[in-house]
């Protein structure tokens, strides 16, 4: 009997854990510096300037040789982008490399190409120190790229705080979070 209760408790715990496979909180990020970031076409951009736009922004971190969630997260965000376009909701997507030593614009183009990504989504690499600073500023730096954190950040409009979504939200949950804001 005791064993059976324990099993039940474990099952309940695990289904609860699945139901909340992500957590969300408001995050203060502070002013973004003037780092020069490099886009897939090799052009120089400024994240600070990108963020001056009034649009909703969805931001995440990735690296091209990742062997865990980078592809699944990118796939989910790609589908999210399609759905938002269908709703006529204009959202800017930004993905920042945490392995700028290897993630050249060329490597990033190769990584991105299968996902069918629409306009309005920038993938950036840059100088190692600049990309490290950004990881620290968004609180996703965990000591090495293999220890990266599964985080999607959503900023609803210019000047608003970021919503930090940590974990593995499904498409429907992400869509709710972006549209609600």
């Amino acid at each position, binding site marked *: 009997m005791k064993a059976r209760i324990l099993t039940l408790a474990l099952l309940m715990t695990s289904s609860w854990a699945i139901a909340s496979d992500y957590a969300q909180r408001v995050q203060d990020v502070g002013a973004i510096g003037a780092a020069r970031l490099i886009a897939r076409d090799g052009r120089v951009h400024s994240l600070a300037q990108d963020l001056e736009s009034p649009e909703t922004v969805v931001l995440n971190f990735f690296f091209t040789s*990742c062997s865990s969630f980078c592809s699944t997260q990118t796939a*989910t965000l790609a589908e999210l982008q399609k759905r938002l376009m269908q709703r006529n909701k204009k959202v800017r997507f930004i993905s920042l490399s945490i392995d700028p030593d290897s993630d050249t614009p060329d490597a990033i183009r190769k990584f991105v190409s299968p996902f069918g990504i629409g306009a309005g989504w920038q993938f950036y690499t840059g100088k190692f120190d600049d990309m490290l600073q950004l990881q620290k500023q968004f609180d996703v730096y965990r000591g090495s790229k293999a220890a990266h954190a599964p985080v999607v950040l959503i900023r609803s409009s210019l000047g608003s705080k970021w919503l930090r979504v940590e974990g593995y939200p*499904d498409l429907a949950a992400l869509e709710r979070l972006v549209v609600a804001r």
Partner: protein
Amino acid sequence: VLSLKALLLTLLLVSGERAIAGNAERGKALYFGKTTLSAQVSGADLPGQRNACVSCHRHSALGGFEADLVVPAIAGRFLFQPASPLTGHSLPWAIEQQERPAYTLDSLHEALTTGVSPAGRRLRSVMPRYQLTREDVADLSAYLSQLDGRVPPGVRDDKIYLATVITPDVQETDSQAMLATLNAFIRAKNAATRQELARSRVSARSQQQMYRNYRSWELLPWRLTGAAHTWPQQLETLFTQQPVFGMVSGMSGADWSAIHRLCESRELPCLFAQLRQVPQLTEQDTAFFNVYFHSGLATHLSVAEHWLKSKDVMHYQLQGPLPAPTQLALLNQNSAWLSDELASSVKSKGAVVALVKPQPDSSVEVSIGQESIRIADAPPAVVNARSNAWLLKNGLAHLPTRITGMALQAVTAMAEILSHADLSFSAAYCLERLEHGLESMPNYTGYERLSLAPGQRFAAKGSFVALGGSQQWTWWQP
């Protein structure tokens, strides 16, 4: 014996209604993404090029730790056995995998298509849900069951054999500096191993779970002789006489491809040889078991391009000897690289053409008129407080620090990856740990940063640059 084993596997995979004999070759193609699959993840499509099993469960099929995820080992010897929290020794073991019955063909099909494990638990949402037929699952099972976890021949019950290769062109003082470093490290490591082995006898738990993979190491210096075309045979003979688990460091100014190929065909982790040039490989060669410090010319040329672009120079010309395929590849990939005739025609029109000259010592000189830079893969002397302290303690501080630092890095990396080895001493799994772990290890070399990742086989991603004739070397990344 093999066909009997195959027969047994087929019998094991008999499912509810009918037996399906899996085809391991087809299963391997599925596993490595040579045959693409349809899959969904978190409600979105995961493209075929990004959903192969190998992307997360890795070459070894022993899984890994990345981010906050534990990607479980799925080699057949784990998948088709009941699992407990103690299964798999040091291998990644996810909570969904704990206390589950052995997978059958049916329950594996169920897990892969719907995401429910045989224990009734939902797999994490990052595990894709695949569209797979029962035949596909049988093929995959057949492949995974082939991975039998035999301990490689270089590992004995009491000892791990390692080799370091020295080619005949290497100066004796240089190879002595490398060997002295490797031997000092291994002496200290073996001294500590005696206590670890003693501890393993303390309790059933320590015998079962801890200290089981400690072995003393023996380093074999493999000195090749004669012409390079005889090296493959020499290496085979040496390996047959005494198989090794892997290679640490090694030294050559010549073509390293024979050693590279031995490591790939025998599946030996070969870590950080000290080379003048990267091995001359062909399209047919694989590059999984070999890791190197630096890609040499390839990175130097990227650095050169980077510098020339910053100077607004639009045309460059190679001068001097370079392997023909590299020349051709450059001319094809980037129109800024000019053939000799094009260069003279462009020059006659008054345009600036920079000269890029590969040097015999593997550095590259780049010049625009009077202005020039030199690009090299390591500065002549390395000042590294970490390795210097260790060298001093071991009485090796008088040796060339570039050699000793690189040797120390190689042997430390071997110790690091062996500390993660599972009970089968999977060489692939060890390398996968290095891909993730190198970045966090102490750096004893002159390189600015060392890091690897799945698919990355060169740890240093930039080169050292000195302006004009100066000896001030700074680190540049393209």
